Each structure stands twice: as structure tokens, then as C-alpha cells.
């Protein structure tokens, strides 16, 4: 909106400001990458010297626990994305297409539980998962992860379905389609971009999540974020290895964001 004629010089502070912004937001990540490619001898003086090596990544891959935790995180993130979408798309559709007491109380419930701090229900979940016998298993982490996404994502999906005109679904119903048919064949294809956007976000959330993983897993199902946080206290002196692990953990998130940039931005705007 501000493309009116401005004195030429006016552009310079704008660009200077934006360069500064870019620098500030990119610098920590660049610094992490730089630390990750320094040999052990130079790791404390990242700003000095030009010796670079990739051996840190090799060392990280030799650590079985790290590799295992990365695989676990990927499995949980993928499965949680799939099931969360399955559940929340349905619930969001219901919230959008039906008005009435059931729908509005469900919406109220979702809002309330969206507010509850994670610790308040993950702490007792620790007892509950032990009681259900699923503590420290894939299921014990996956199910709470799906549950945590229900509130926010149902809310987002409701907003999205509200923006889609239901008249196509009426038409399908009149033409003899069942309600499920109208949902699957008419509403879902129209919502596909939004679903992809949520999918990308959901994967990133789960991959990056820490508190659930910390409380609900132990030795059997280590998760990447927990293993990294343990590193800081256990081998806090080996910053090059630490950084290499963190960089490796960033790679999938980075690729997903880069290729799904359109969807990430769309999802954030929902």
C-alpha cells in the first residue's frame, strides 16, 4: 500500500532495517551450523581459523541412542500427523456444518482445553499411561499427541470449513449422495490445501515437542528433543557434537518448511 513516490533515500533505512532483521533471525542458526562443522580442536574458537570438518556428523551417527531417537521422533511425528488430521478434520467439519447445543458445547470444551497448560494434564498422564500399560511405548506418546492437537486443529478446521460454501454439499445430497459421501467427495477435496497446511504444521509441532516426550518416555522410546536436552547437561563441553546433533535435527524440519513453505504460511494464517 505504500508504493507512492517517496524520496529515493527513503529506501535505504528500510533496507538497512530489513538486512538487520535478516541477520538477527538467521545468525543463531548459522552460528550453530558453523559450530557443527568445526573440528574438536577448534570448537571453542568458532570465530577463529578456517578448519572445517564433517566428522562431527559421523560421530553423531555412531551414537546409537541418537539415531534411535531420531527414528522414534520421525515415526511419532508422521503417525501423529496422520491420525490428528483424520480426527480433527471430522470434528472441525462437524463444528462448522452443525449448529445447536451439541456443537456449541463441543466448541466451548475445545476452547477450555486449549487453555489448560500442558503440564496440568501431562503430569497426571504419567500415572494414566502407566495404568493403561502404555507408558514409554509408541502408543503412550502417540495418543496424547493426537489428543493435544484436537483442540487447536478442530478450531482451525472449523474456521476453514466456515469459509467453504456448503451449497455444493447440498447439491450432492439432493443428487442422492449420502452425508458421508458429501463430506468425503465434496467437502474434503475443497479443504485439501488447508489440510496440507495443517499437516505440515502438525509434523513440525510433534517433531519439536519436548514436554510430552520428557515425561511420557523413558529408556525404551527416546525422543530426539529429550536426547538433545540431556546432552547439554551430560556432555555440555562438547559443543561441536551438540551442534551437529541439533543441525541434523533441523534438517527434516528445514526441508519440510522449504518445500512446504506455501502451506506453512497458509497454516499459520489460518
Amino acid at each position: 500500500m505504500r508504493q507512492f513516490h517517496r524520496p529515493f533515500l527513503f529506501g535505504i533505512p528500510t533496507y538497512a532495517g530489513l538486512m538487520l532483521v535478516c541477520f538477527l533471525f538467521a545468525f543463531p542458526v548459522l552460528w550453530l551450523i558453523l559450530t557443527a562443522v568445526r573440528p574438536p580442536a577448534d570448537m571453542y574458537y568458532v570465530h577463529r581459523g578456517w578448519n572445517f570438518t564433517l566428522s562431527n556428523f559421523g560421530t553423531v551417527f555412531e551414537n546409537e541412542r541418537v539415531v534411535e531417537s531420531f527414528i522414534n521422533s520421525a515415526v511419532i511425528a508422521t503417525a501423529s500427523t496422520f491420525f490428528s488430521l483424520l480426527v480433527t478434520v471430522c470434528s472441525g467439519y462437524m463444528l462448522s456444518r452443525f449448529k445447536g447445543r451439541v456443537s456449541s458445547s463441543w466448541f466451548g470444551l475445545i476452547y477450555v482445553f486449549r487453555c489448560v497448560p500442558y503440564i496440568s494434564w501431562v503430569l497426571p498422564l504419567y500415572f494414566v499411561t502407566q495404568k493403561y500399560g502404555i507408558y514409554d511405548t509408541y502408543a503412550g506418546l502417540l495418543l496424547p499427541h493426537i489428543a493435544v492437537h484436537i483442540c487447536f486443529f478442530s478450531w482451525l478446521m472449523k474456521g476453514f470449513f466456515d469459509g467453504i460454501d456448503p451449497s455444493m454439499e447440498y447439491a450432492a445430497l439432493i443428487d442422492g449422495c449420502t452425508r458421508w459421501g458429501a463430506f468425503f467427495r465434496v467437502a474434503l477435496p475443497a479443504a485439501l490445501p488447508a489440510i496440507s497446511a495443517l499437516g505440515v504444521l502438525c509434523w513440525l509441532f510433534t517433531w519439536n515437542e519436548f514436554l510430552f516426550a520428557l515425561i511420557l518416555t523413558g529408556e525404551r522410546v527416546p525422543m530426539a528433543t529429550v536426547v538433545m536436552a540431556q546432552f547439554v547437561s551430560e556432555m555440555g563441553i562438547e559443543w561441536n557434537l551438540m551442534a551437529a546433533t541439533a543441525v541434523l535435527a533441523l534438517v527434516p524440519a528445514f526441508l519440510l518448511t522449504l518445500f512446504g513453505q506455501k502451506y506453512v504460511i497458509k497454516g499459520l494464517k489460518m
Partner: protein
Amino acid sequence: MLPMQKEKKFIFGERERFMLLLMAPAALLLILFQIIPIAIGLNVSFRDWALYNPKETWIGLKHYFAILSDPVFTHTVLPNTFIFMAGSVSLSLAIGMCIALLLNRKVKGQKIIQTVLLLPLMVAPVIAAIMMRWMFNDQFGIVNVVLGALGLETVSWFTNRVLAFSVILFTDIWLWTPWFTILLLAALQSFPKEPFEAAEIDGTSRWRTFWYITLPMLRPVIVVCVVIRTIDAFRTFDIVWTLTGGGPGRGTEIFSLYAYVIAFQNLNFGKGSAAAMIGAVIILAFGLVLYKVLNKVVDTKA
């Protein structure tokens, strides 16, 4: 709405079955993994239950009184939590707004800047915390190296409560400013041009244009962002845990950490649950007020 909606009587027909089936999986998961755990947590919070004392005797509100009269909770944890919420949300909103306004000027390379801004959003908070911990390392961190090179005194960031807290705040702002920017920029770009052109023709100053046109138009977006972020900031755990672990001493402990430490480090599950419940009550009260504000703002807009 789908047909048959006008029917007044509640008949459990095909339409209702469809509606309930749609929400059934979500409702079931919510009950099993949120409502039941919270109910169990509530029950545990009234009991004297610790790893070294597994009798689970009913003691009523004793844990609650103990926590509410704990000076660490009232004088460190609560102020920390609220300063963190207010500081993180207001600063990331302000900075995010500045960046969004800069980006809204049809600058070249907007795509690149937007990609850079997405960077913090994909970084796990734990990784961001590790990163900052390394950058603010008192001996080898780049921040102190730069300070030293400038001839300033190097700072030992994590041994001073205020400084450690600032690093935590800085990390959170780094993580969340881009989110504000992207949402505000999207709103800015969706505005009609006419009011701004009119202001331009009338010779209104930039500041006044911003204050009287841009800001009121942005208000609904700002309110939604602030509500979401305030509630999320209250439950921050990972960056504090990884950066300082609550230290020095217990100086940077915030609510989630406090409950976690009682339950899993002191292994006092009863008291930890009580702390978690107190936090839930606080944020729910907050959330209800915010919800009212939200509805009001959205109403005046429409």
C-alpha cells in the same frame, strides 16, 4: 446448514448419527487423554502421595495451602511467569509489527526475507535454547567474544537472575516474532488501499496514518494473536528447562517448571499435581477474560 435443520423436535436420526460419529473419535481421545487425566490429577492433588510415601492418604487442600504459602511460588515463580508472558508477548508483537510494516513497503527480495523469517518457526524450542546457551556461554560464547572485542566487560549470563531471565526472554522473542510478522503482514496486505490513499492525498503524516488507520484496522488480528500467544506463553517449559533449568538457584523458574520439579525431581506427585491444578485455574480465568475481550473486539469489527 445441511437440510432437515429446521426440524424443531430432537429426533435421533441419520443426521444426528452423522454429527456424533464425526466428533466421536475426537471426543473419545479428549476424554481419555485430557479429561480423565485431569480428573485423576485433581484427585491426586488432594492426597499425600510421593514416591517415598505411597500411601495416598486424603489430606484435602493441604498441598494447595502449602504451595500458595511457598515463598518460592509467590515471590519467584508467579512474578517470573507473568513477566515472561507480558514481556514475551508485548516485545514480539512490537518487533513483529515493525518488521511487518517494513516488509509491507513493496521491497525487493521480500520472498527471501520471508523465508529467513520462517527459520525460527521450524527450529525446535529445545534447539533454540541449546543455540542460545552456546552463544551466551560465558567463556567461549560469541556474545562475550564480541563484547570483549569491543573492549567491554564480558558478562557471565547464567549466574545472574536478571541476565539469565533476559536470555530466556530473548530466546522466546526470537522464536515467536516471525509468527507475529507473518500474521500481521497477511492482514496488512489484505487491507483496501483507499483509506491510505486518502490519507496520503490529505498530507497526513506517516505516524498519524499508522495510529488512526493502520492500527485500528489491525486490531482484531492483534487481539487474536495476543490471546493465543499469552495462553501459550504461560505453559512455556522447554526453553527455560534447557537454558537455565530454573537457575541460578530457582531464580528463573516459571510455573510449568515449578510443577515439574516438585513432581519429578522431588518425586512428590501429590504436591506437583496440586501445583499443576493451580496453574490450570489461573490460566483458565485468564482465558475466559481474554475470550470475552476477543468476542467484544470481533463484534465491534463486524
